[in-house]
């Protein structure tokens, strides 16, 4: 509430009058991290024919009596400047990391720290998926957390969750964390 500057648009938001609680989740991460695969796996869709995302995908998933609107935005370098446009009114950020791509841990850590500093994401909880655990060359979640300096994030809730978007392993655990966290937060 108290968003006087949003004025009429926030009124319209209330007009929808759906009984479900709606949650806006933004799904970000470098290209080839597995964001779209994760999104499709959340929506129980086929994950075998996924191509690099040039724009963005949206899926609405019902979970724990809430409607999660998940926005997956392409992670290619040339698209990353557009991320900012999607952060407004975000309830939660999911950040996906390719745990097997050690060479780019630094790059992905940098992108994440820039996101954390965004005004629109102030205090927004972050769930980090250490994806691609099905690959033999992947680093464990603890190592990824270290690579990203996650321990320095003290201004918000965060969680790192090992997962494999392809097999679905660990994905539900992450979603449970999200729902518990949002429920606490929104009340």
């Amino acid at each position, binding site marked *: 509430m108290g968003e006087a500057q949003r004025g009429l*648009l926030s*009124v319209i938001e209330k*007009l929808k009058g759906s009984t479900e609680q709606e949650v806006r989740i933004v799904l970000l991460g470098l290209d080839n991290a597995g964001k779209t695969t994760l999104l499709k796996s959340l929506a129980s869709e086929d994950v075998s024919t996924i191509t690099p995302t040039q724009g963005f*995908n*949206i899926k609405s998933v019902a979970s724990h009596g809430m409607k999660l609107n998940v926005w997956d935005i392409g992670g290619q370098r040339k698209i990353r400047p557009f991320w900012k446009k999607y952060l407004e009114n975000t309830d939660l950020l999911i950040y996906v990391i390719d745990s097997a791509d050690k060479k780019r841990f630094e790059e992905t850590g940098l992108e994440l720290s820039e996101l954390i500093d965004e005004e629109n994401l102030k205090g927004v909880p972050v769930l980090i998926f250490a994806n691609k655990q099905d690959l033999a060359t992947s680093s464990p979640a603890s190592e990824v957390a270290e690579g990203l300096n996650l321990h320095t994030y003290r201004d918000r809730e965060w969680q790192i969750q090992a997962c494999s978007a392809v097999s679905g392993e660990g994905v539900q655990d992450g979603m449970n964390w999200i729902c518990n966290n949002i429920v606490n937060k929104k009340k």
Partner: protein
Amino acid sequence: MAEEESEWILESIVGYLGSPEWVIPVSDFMENKCTVFDDEDENKLSYTDIHLQYKKLVETLLGNYMQEVGINEQQFLDACTSPFAKTKTLQSVFQPVLATDDFQMFRSLMVQKNTELQLQALSVIKEMNGALPECLTDGVDVMTELQDQEMKILQEVLKKSKDEYDKEMSRRLLLEHKVGSSSDKRLAESSKAQNTSSAASQPSGAAKLTSRPVTTDERQTLARAGGERKSAAKSSSTSKPSPDCGSNGVESRVLPAVRPPVKSGDPPLSAGSREQSSSLTPPEGWLEEAHREAGFSKPYTELSASQQEQLQQRAAYLRQQRDKLHALKKEQQKPKQTIVPEEAPAVVTPEISAEEKKKLQKRKHLADKLKEEVIKK
């Protein structure tokens, strides 16, 4: 009291949402911006900006309206969430308003608008032309059009080459006694040239002319050169001297698509006598002509590798056709000329004199060089 108020406010709002002040700007916006919205699963980044613009538009419109009527946001909200507003018809009236907050709804409205406009365009085209052009109807492949076109061209070419052949035959009857040995030489040369050509396929004399292998590449080449071909085809039947141009520099430069072996097989350049070479030209002249048409349709240097390959495929095909004509001719010559060899290189090669060999080599070298130069440019 509050309910009554909500009722008239709601009525007023619904009235506004049906009035030109609202409908015109909103539908203008949608019609102008909907073209990028397709039914793909993935959203384009540009949708977001358009959605943002839409939000601003609606905000401005509704803001102005509320100011005019003198209601505040709370009254607006109360009215719109009152039980009266929950009917289905009113929900659809509110859709464009709700679309500001719901991207998915906005997107589906835009996709719907885009489809509507496309259908409108189709019906306009249908009205104007009586029927839709084939390319706009479902299930008709563009390739069939090309195929039709190609068949027409092919028939024309075959007809022309037969005409030329008939003419040549009548001329040949007159020149018959001269033809003998020099014709041998020419044939020997041309078959030698074919042996050196990598793309040249062995002539299959028995094969019918119409049974040509149709490849997609060829079709494209044909379609591209098609427009010119028709006019050029007419002129080529009358312009006999054109093949002679092959020997002058300027002409060869625009002919790089013709591969060296073809050139060296060019009758006008052969050591044979002039008058008789002109009687032999028609098929070759036509081949040369076709090459030139294809070559002229675009400067060779601008062609991509695949297009060059297409040209070469075409050249190979044309050579094949020529060979078939040769075979036909020879068969008819047989009763008159007993010594015409049957396209057998093994028999023919020894008959080439050392001098002619040299000449051939020289010519090939020249052609190679020319080709190289042109490609480099």
